[in-house]
């Protein structure tokens, strides 16, 4: 840490002038990556990394993996198809890129994961307990006949706790080989980035095929329930042209949302209301047009990581919450954005 030019004055009863230790004034070292050169063991954290990005839940899985790795000098291996962001910042010491030839081939993905586990013998393999991660975890558990703890809610190097009997009881056990972590049960990694050096992918094993084809279905964003949506674009009292707003949403592939004032006025359905008395979002990104950002509205954004706001008032709470804030009339920005999209970006 850098201390200012002159050391702070101190009262020294000995009458000797205090001289700050040299180390205190040393310049801040360049940010260095934490390196675990010779890990005592490996912890796999498996992520789908949809769109090349780690979700909030997957960052939490990496955070939990760090908690298993750090006490014993282990290293965290992020296992993901391909990544467009820094795995080291999320806490990965190693990066294992495992991509099946066919992106939606669950059986090939399972075989690859089994091969990676055989080659690197990790101590534990962690998954996110959601539709995709939970499926992969169970496929691997059945394939390897390995012990598995599902939907773990508390995890340390000594024990894992998971609910059972209709959530009226819980199982406490030593962390088994395979674990899936429930959302919001572990903190993501903060602090210095780790090295994230690449590991060699294993040779693909034999794949047993039973799923003949797999492909994503085109789902129009407007059909996706607000709570499940990935991108929400919302209109507030500053928006008047709702037909144009809905056209913009469909052009962006976003699920439309609204503030309460707009829903009360009947301009948008109640199901679109974001906030304390509406829907709490789990979206990756949120764009607010003409929304003041009342506390009741902001409660609905509790878990959204990326927020952009367009508002005429620079002092609006929404502007303060936003990562990208644009002080401009929403009635002029929306048509401009639509025109830009229609012109092909």
């Amino acid at each position, binding site marked *: 840490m850098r201390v200012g030019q002159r050391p702070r004055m101190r009262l020294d009863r000995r009458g000797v002038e205090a001289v700050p230790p040299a180390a205190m004034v040393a310049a801040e070292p360049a940010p260095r990556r934490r390196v675990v050169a010779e890990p005592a063991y490996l912890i796999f954290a498996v992520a789908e990394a*949809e769109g090349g990005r780690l979700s909030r839940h997957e960052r*939490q899985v990496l*955070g939990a993996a760090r*908690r298993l790795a750090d006490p014993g000098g282990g290293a965290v291996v992020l296992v993901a198809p391909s990544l467009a962001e820094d795995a080291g910042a999320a806490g990965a010491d190693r990066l294992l890129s495992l991509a099946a030839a066919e992106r939606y081939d669950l059986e090939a993905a399972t075989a690859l994961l089994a091969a990676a586990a055989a080659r690197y013998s990790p101590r534990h393999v962690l998954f996110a307990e*959601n*539709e*995709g991660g939970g*499926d992969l975890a169970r*496929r691997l*558990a*059945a394939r390897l*006949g390995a012990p*598995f703890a*599902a939907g773990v*809610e*508390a995890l340390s190097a000594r024990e894992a706790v998971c*609910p*059972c*009997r209709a*959530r*009226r*009881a*819980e*199982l406490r*056990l030593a962390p088994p080989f395979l674990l899936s972590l429930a959302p919001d*049960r572990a*903190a993501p*990694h*903060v*602090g210095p980035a780790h090295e994230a050096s690449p590991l060699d992918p294993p040779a693909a094993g034999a794949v047993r095929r*039973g*799923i*003949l084809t*797999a492909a994503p*279905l085109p*789902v129009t964003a407007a*059909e996706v329930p607000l709570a499940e949506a*990935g991108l929400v674009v919302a209109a507030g009292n500053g928006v008047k042209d709702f037909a144009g707003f809905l056209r913009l949403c469909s*052009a*962006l*592939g976003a699920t439309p949302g609204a503030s309460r004032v707009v829903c009360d006025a009947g301009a948008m359905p109640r199901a679109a209301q974001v906030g304390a008395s509406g829907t709490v979002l789990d979206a*990756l*990104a949120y764009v607010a047009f003409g929304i003041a950002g009342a506390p009741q509205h902001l409660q609905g954004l509790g878990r959204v990581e*990326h*927020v952009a706001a*367009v508002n005429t008032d*620079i002092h609006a709470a929404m*502007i*303060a*919450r936003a*990562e*990208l*804030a*644009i002080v*401009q009339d929403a009635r*002029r920005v929306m048509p*401009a*954005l639509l025109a*830009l*999209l229609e012109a092909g970006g």
Partner: protein
Amino acid sequence: MRAVVLLSAGRHPLSARPAPVPVEMQAIALARGLGADVAGLHAGAPDLAVREALGQGMDRVTVLRIGEADDAVAALAAALAADPPDLVLAGNRGRGGEDSGLLPYLLAEALGWPIAANAVALAAAAEGLAVIQARARGARWRLVVAPPAVVTVHPAAPPALPFAYARARRGRIEEQEGRSAPLVPRVAEERPYRPRPRVIGVAGGGSAAERLRAATEVAGGGRVLVDPPPEEAARELLAWLRALGFSRSADE
């Protein structure tokens, strides 16, 4: 087409009384929607929850009697292999037992059948059975599996058929001796559920200064563009969305 729906001894989360597991009842509705001949299968002691399932669209349930310490997968696999149906449906998670959602996978592995998880719709397809699968963030995948197959059902599937008392009375429960194979007990302590606070933001980990910063700093604190021309504002917004991976509009 013949479908078998796996029924578990469900318990109500509040009263702990026997109650059918909702996703299993949704599974019956999905199977009936295919026009399949539907029967239920349960391994364990005859349970009240299983009898109630008869009122929701099934005429027949087979109970494979096995002991407390026996492996349900072995009993189910033996019964299904002896008389294989085209389709085995199960809930994606149980409610009242271990609730790990692992059993359908172990069963598929034991039978050597494919498994498709989290179905919200089923349809007959030319090459086999089309399964619409729920994925994270409201996405859907379409899988085609070759029967015989195991399919688990997601809570987002269409609702169950209404309960009909007369049907539940009329339905038959057939008891059979199940194949007994002892389950390898797992070393775990069971105790009453304790709700734990969810982790919000960044607690723990990092240095004290980092935790303080995470706790006190307002999220965002990002870029503020004051009075940009609307076209520039639009370009900035689009660039921001693209950087987050939302570029769907680009390939349309």
